[in-house]
């Protein structure tokens, strides 16, 4: 039995690197420090995996040799007039580097999951810029933490305890104790109210008045957290204050904040369902803090306004820097979507939606983004790696993806692999093979190899290299 420490967790953008894994006979038996999602991956990754290459013959997926699968993949890509190479967010940077070379060689479009996730954030960063940092800056210094359109309690479970509200830094202490006492006070209040209602036989269908006033805790000089969302999430229950924004009105709310930061008055009484007095108090807290951070998620990028919501958020934070120190960071989903952006950018100049069809990189999301290309049915072949678009893309896009020759490289059986024409099983990055990946704040960390993969499962990097080699042969190019 061995214990490996300092393991990086290959699940979400928090990319925790303090996981301790116990292995016995090449099987992971115990995981420490990981959240429920991370532990589930380490302990259960082998449940739905596939180990044999498959090729569709006469409508059925049948087992094939790896060589045959590689050769067919190369043929599909080399013959295609506008192939798409999609995924990349759950594999290593090393694999993505080979993928870019392959996309360039076959003159296709290469894109990663930003295209359905934080693509809008990137587009706005390209217009406005971004005032950001690494997560440690926040652990040490941030006394005001916003989560907007993001629910870290469920999606990035250890975010608060590792980096923000419930972490300990050089200049700021954890707000955990404050939260616990607030929690017990809330529970006590609830119990009392229930008891009173029972005794007085009060009609409980009448909802209690919501107290909109900001609680005392947000005015104190200590770490505080404010959550802004369309519904009261678990993260919102943990916060010092929760602002419920009317769905699809985040842009107006952000712009209203910007006005108040500039000391201008608003002509209206409420914005996005929030009274202006509340907004004025929140802006006072923003200006009065020592260092503030605004985390945002798909609540901004995928609600009405999309990239312009992020535009307003980036501009708000930029404006706040005139009054105090303020930073902003997108909550990236997959553990290496940032890495995919980073590698794409240094090799091609563009972070996603890169079109190599003319022999050099071109970039225009909406035109060269894979989800849009598929919605319009413009591609004629596809390679999907480290992602599951059949499960996640709009229906029309998924239909257009599977009606053309499709290669899927994945360690697991997924809806995409079930619909593919060639399936190549790969090793789990971060568990069975090593590599490099980037945390949501652009910090690069090593992915470890903890157990050996089945010998039919090669790392993504190797599979792609073999396909590239075969494409070179088909085109009679020296390697």
């Amino acid at each position, binding site marked *: 039995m061995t214990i490996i420490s300092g393991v990086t967790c290959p699940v979400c953008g928090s990319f925790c690197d303090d996981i301790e894994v116990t292995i016995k006979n090449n099987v992971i038996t115990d995981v420490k420090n990981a959240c429920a999602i991370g532990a589930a991956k380490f302990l259960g990754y082998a449940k739905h995996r596939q180990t044999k290459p498959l090729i569709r013959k006469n409508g059925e997926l049948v087992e094939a040799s790896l060589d045959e699968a590689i050769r067919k993949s190369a043929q599909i890509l080399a013959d*295609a*007039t506008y192939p798409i190479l999609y995924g990349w967010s759950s594999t290593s940077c090393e694999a993505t580097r080979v993928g870019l070379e392959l996309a360039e060689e076959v003159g296709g479009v290469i894109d990663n999951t930003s295209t359905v996730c934080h693509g809008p954030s990137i587009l706005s960063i390209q217009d406005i810029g971004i005032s950001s940092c690494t997560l440690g800056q926040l652990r040490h210094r941030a006394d005001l933490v916003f989560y907007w359109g993001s629910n870290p309690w469920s999606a990035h479970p250890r975010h608060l305890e590792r980096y923000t509200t419930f972490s300990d830094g050089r200049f700021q202490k954890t707000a955990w104790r404050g939260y616990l006492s607030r929690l017990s006070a809330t529970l006590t209040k609830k119990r009392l109210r229930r008891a009173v209602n029972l005794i007085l036989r009060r009609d409980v269908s009448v909802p209690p008045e919501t107290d909109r006033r900001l609680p005392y805790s947000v005015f104190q000089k200590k770490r505080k957290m404010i959550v802004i969302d369309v519904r009261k999430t678990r993260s919102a229950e943990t916060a010092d204050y929760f602002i419920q924004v009317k769905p699809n009105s985040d842009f107006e709310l952000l712009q*209203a904040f910007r006005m108040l930061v500039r000391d201008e008055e608003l*002509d209206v009484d409420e*914005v996005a369902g929030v009274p202006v007095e509340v907004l004025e108090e929140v802006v006072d807290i923003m200006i009065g803090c020592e260092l503030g951070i605004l985390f945002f998620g798909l609540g901004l990028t995928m609600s009405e*306004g999309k990239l*312009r919501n992020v535009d307003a958020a980036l501009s708000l934070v930029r404006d706040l820097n005139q009054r105090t120190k303020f930073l902003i960071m997108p909550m990236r989903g997959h553990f290496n979507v940032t890495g995919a952006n980073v590698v794409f950018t240094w090799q091609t100049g563009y972070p996603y939606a890169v079109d190599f069809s003319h022999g050099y990189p071109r970039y225009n999301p909406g035109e060269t983004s894979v989800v849009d290309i598929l919605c319009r049915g*413009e591609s*004629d072949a596809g390679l999907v790696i480290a992602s599951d678009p059949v499960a996640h893309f709009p229906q029309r896009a998924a239909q257009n993806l599977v009606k053309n020759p499709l290669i899927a490289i994945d360690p697991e059986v997924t809806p995409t692999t079930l619909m593919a024409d060639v399936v190549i099983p790969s090793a789990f990055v971060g568990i069975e093979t090593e590599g490099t990946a980037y945390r949501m704040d652009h910090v690069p960390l090593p992915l470890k190899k903890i157990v050996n993969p089945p010998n039919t499962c090669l790392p993504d990097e190797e599979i792609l290299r073999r396909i590239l080699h075969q494409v070179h042969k088909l085109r009679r190019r020296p390697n």
Partner: protein
Amino acid sequence: MITLCPKRVFKVPVDAECISPDIFAEKSASEIAKLLVWEGNRKRTLGELFKIELQTKTESKEPTIQISGDLRRVRKIGAKMCTGKIVVDGDVGMHLGEEMRGGVITVGGSADSWAGCMMKNGTIEIKGDAGDYVGAAYRGSTLGMSEGTIIIHGNAGNEAGCFMRKGIIKIRGNVGQFAGMHMKDGTILVRENSEGRAGAEMLGGKIIVCGHIPSILPTFTIDTVTPKVKVDGEEVAGPFYRFLGDLTENGDGKLFVSQTQNPHLKPYENYL
């Protein structure tokens, strides 16, 4: 006059930057047929993909190009053109007239997104609808259309006139959200409704909405009620609420919104 017609249905995007009166000028039909186009990742010649006919004997300096057939996947028609005319019978693909400097493009059907983007001068008239980003800038750039006129008889999509610097966009139908996003100057006239957020982050210029708009951004302040607005020499009858903004950008832009079509904006009159 040169006529073009696709020889077949295009399944992948076709990049036809060479379809431009300046490039066709003083060329013979066979020379035109040899021009380079991209079909996906394959290099083709124009003659391989299009049937080309030269209608007049003399090769003109400012030719007219007429294109018929399914052009929805044909992009960059009229890009960078300076003179001459292009007439498209039906629908046409993205980037129509991108960076054009002069001449006229007329489209009988609808145009896909990025029509007239980064336009420097000239005229584009679309009888049908237009997609998103009409007259806009490239990603990351602040250089949207700078002169010229774009007329859309149908509806336009989102972010029309994004980062535009001058020029006029006239939309006879409805417009999507964020018309005039980040605009520096120029005019956008919308005869019917806007889906909202018109003039977001504008620095200057004029936007006129003659129909309904669900709300005005909180970063605009009401200035006056005016009976009419002048656009490109013609007078557009109001009455209009005139808002100034976007205040978060120290903007000097003017947003005119129909008074009669927007009774829900009446509370703003208290501030007059």
